[in-house]
């Protein structure tokens, strides 16, 4: 297992490099982009001067090296809009996004595992059919539209949940935590919907694969109760691939967070990114792409390590 972990760990190097080259290229090779430097404030003649002073006339590889060295020290520059360091802006907004995406992920897992199991055990029954339709609908509904619909139904018509922001403004609340949770319900539910639907299908198929394995038959043959067979023998094995899949869901979750945070005015990095894109705030955009990219690469690394720890077979296969 150590050799596997070592090989997997070494992979992070090239992955990070590709990520950095891509995000640098995204900004620097775009027509009109100035590589994270605001030239709007300048008049025509000064632009060339400014390019020279800021080093934009140097060869791209040199600029890349320079930028890389700053990124390594977590220095993403300052925002064009308010001059605040990008790092601080991101760290300020990060907890809100972690809370939102974390809740959505937990919701997906808590719902998808039992639903997928039921679907698999009652294959081709009306329940399975209904869950299949649910799963397909869940991945076919655009998140922003689902958000608009729940805002109208649960926020406005029924008035059960607040629909904007993360906390109540100008109103006394008994407990801050309860207030935030109250605000969290709708955005997390909408963000978690797609994941719940997709994971339900995956649990169903991996459970169906496991149920025909010899060890399940053996367990049944030796008289283990059905309940134990399903949970201890089948489910435990069926959930193994989920570890990797949860890692692979991270980019989708962050992408979904951009949309959901925008619709619900949730103060996270997704909304920060959308605002930065609209305002052409290049340093913030670059910082966010690198930051979220590094987070997902590390998330996948963790998932793979967890997989290797849980599944002893990985040693032999690789």
């Amino acid at each position, binding site marked *: 297992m150590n050799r596997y972990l070592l090989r997997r760990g070494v992979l992070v190097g090239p992955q990070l490099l590709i990520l950095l080259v891509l995000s640098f290229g995204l900004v620097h090779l775009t*027509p009109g982009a100035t590589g994270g430097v605001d030239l709007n404030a300048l008049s025509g003649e000064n632009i060339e001067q400014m390019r020279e002073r800021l080093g934009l006339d140097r060869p791209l590889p040199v600029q890349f090296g320079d930028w890389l060295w700053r990124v390594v020290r977590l220095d993403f520059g300052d925002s064009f809009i308010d001059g605040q360091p990008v790092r601080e802006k991101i760290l300020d907004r990060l907890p809100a996004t972690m809370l939102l995406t974390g809740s959505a992920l937990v919701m997906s897992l808590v719902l998808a595992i039992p639903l997928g199991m039921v679907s698999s055990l009652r294959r081709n029954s009306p329940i399975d059919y209904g869950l299949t339709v649910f799963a397909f609908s869940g991945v076919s*509904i655009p998140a922003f*539209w689902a958000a608009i619909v729940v805002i109208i139904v649960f926020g406005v018509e029924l008035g059960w949940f607040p629909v904007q922001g993360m906390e109540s403004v100008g109103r006394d609340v008994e407990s801050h935590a309860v207030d935030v949770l109250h605000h969290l319900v709708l955005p997390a539910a909408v963000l978690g919907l797609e994941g719940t639907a997709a994971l339900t299908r995956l649990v169903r198929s991996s459970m169906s694969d496991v149920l025909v394995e010899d060890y399940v038959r053996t367990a049944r043959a030796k008289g283990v109760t059905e309940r134990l067979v399903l949970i201890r023998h089948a489910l435990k094995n069926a959930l193994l691939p989920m570890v990797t899949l949860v890692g692979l869901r991270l980019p989708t979750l962050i992408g979904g967070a951009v*949309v959901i945070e925008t619709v619900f005015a949730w103060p996270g990095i997704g909304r920060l990114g959308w605002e930065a894109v609209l305002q052409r705030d290049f340093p913030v955009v670059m910082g966010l792409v690198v930051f979220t990219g590094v987070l997902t690469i590390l998330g996948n690394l963790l998932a793979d390590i967890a997989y290797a720890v849980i599944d002893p077979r990985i040693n032999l296969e690789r």
Partner: protein
Amino acid sequence: MVAILATVDRATPLIRGAPSTRRWRWRRFAANRLSLIGLAMLGILVVAAVAGPGVGRRFFDLEANTLSCLSLEGPSRAHPFGCDPLGRDILARLLLGGRISLAVGLLVAVCTTVLGLLVGLTSGYLGGFADSLLMRFTDTMLAMPTFFIVLAAAAFLGPSLFNTIVIIGVTQWMVTARLIRGECLAIREKEYILAARVSGHSNVGIMRHILLNVVSTVIVVATLAVATGILTESALSYLGLGIQPPQASWGSMLSGAQNYIFVEPMQGVYPGVLIVLTVLAVNFVGEGLREALDPRLAGR
């Protein structure tokens, strides 16, 4: 026991080239009622999108970009779905938006398929260093928060129909590439490839053999790419970075209707329902094709 029988049935090998292959595939496709429903829905949507705007203009005076009625006018005989905030006929815009959505979906699928084939075939055929290099790149792209990149690229390159398609395509080819590489690795070791090699086929000739054998996989993932393309385009247009006015898109119609959602809630419903129906239909058809073309993948 029933479950075991079901698996055996699912794994029944497909004899390629047998006279009944086509009928056998159709039976497998039609065995799932949802695939048939999807196919019917998709057929209606395609006909409506292709013929709808022309028929509407010719016979019912439906103009998508003309201010033909009052702002937010309710449904009437002349304007069955009412009018949008600017006073344009909603039905006409829905039909045109469908055209855009389906076109974007199809072209995104073409884009991802071409890129996926290029990377997947090269990787799977060459193997070795080129393979690991390409696959590390693919894995990294797969781990990237692509929607951020899509947003940024759309804003920096300037939002347009063409850019929307290319940007989505360039960030969605990875699954296709990995599946094709996997198939290619397996096919490379088959006897008929060895036979082609010893009978003196060139690399290109052998690639052609491999290509013909990954067609089923390509069709299935391309269908799913259509769905992803439509969904991503609608989200991008909703955020104002996709299809630009005056072109109609279901996503941008929703963001336009959102401000008037309490006056005319139905205007926020039509485009959304159409997106869901289209993507659902494509996904159902994709699942049916998967069952028909690639029995090993069915039910996954």
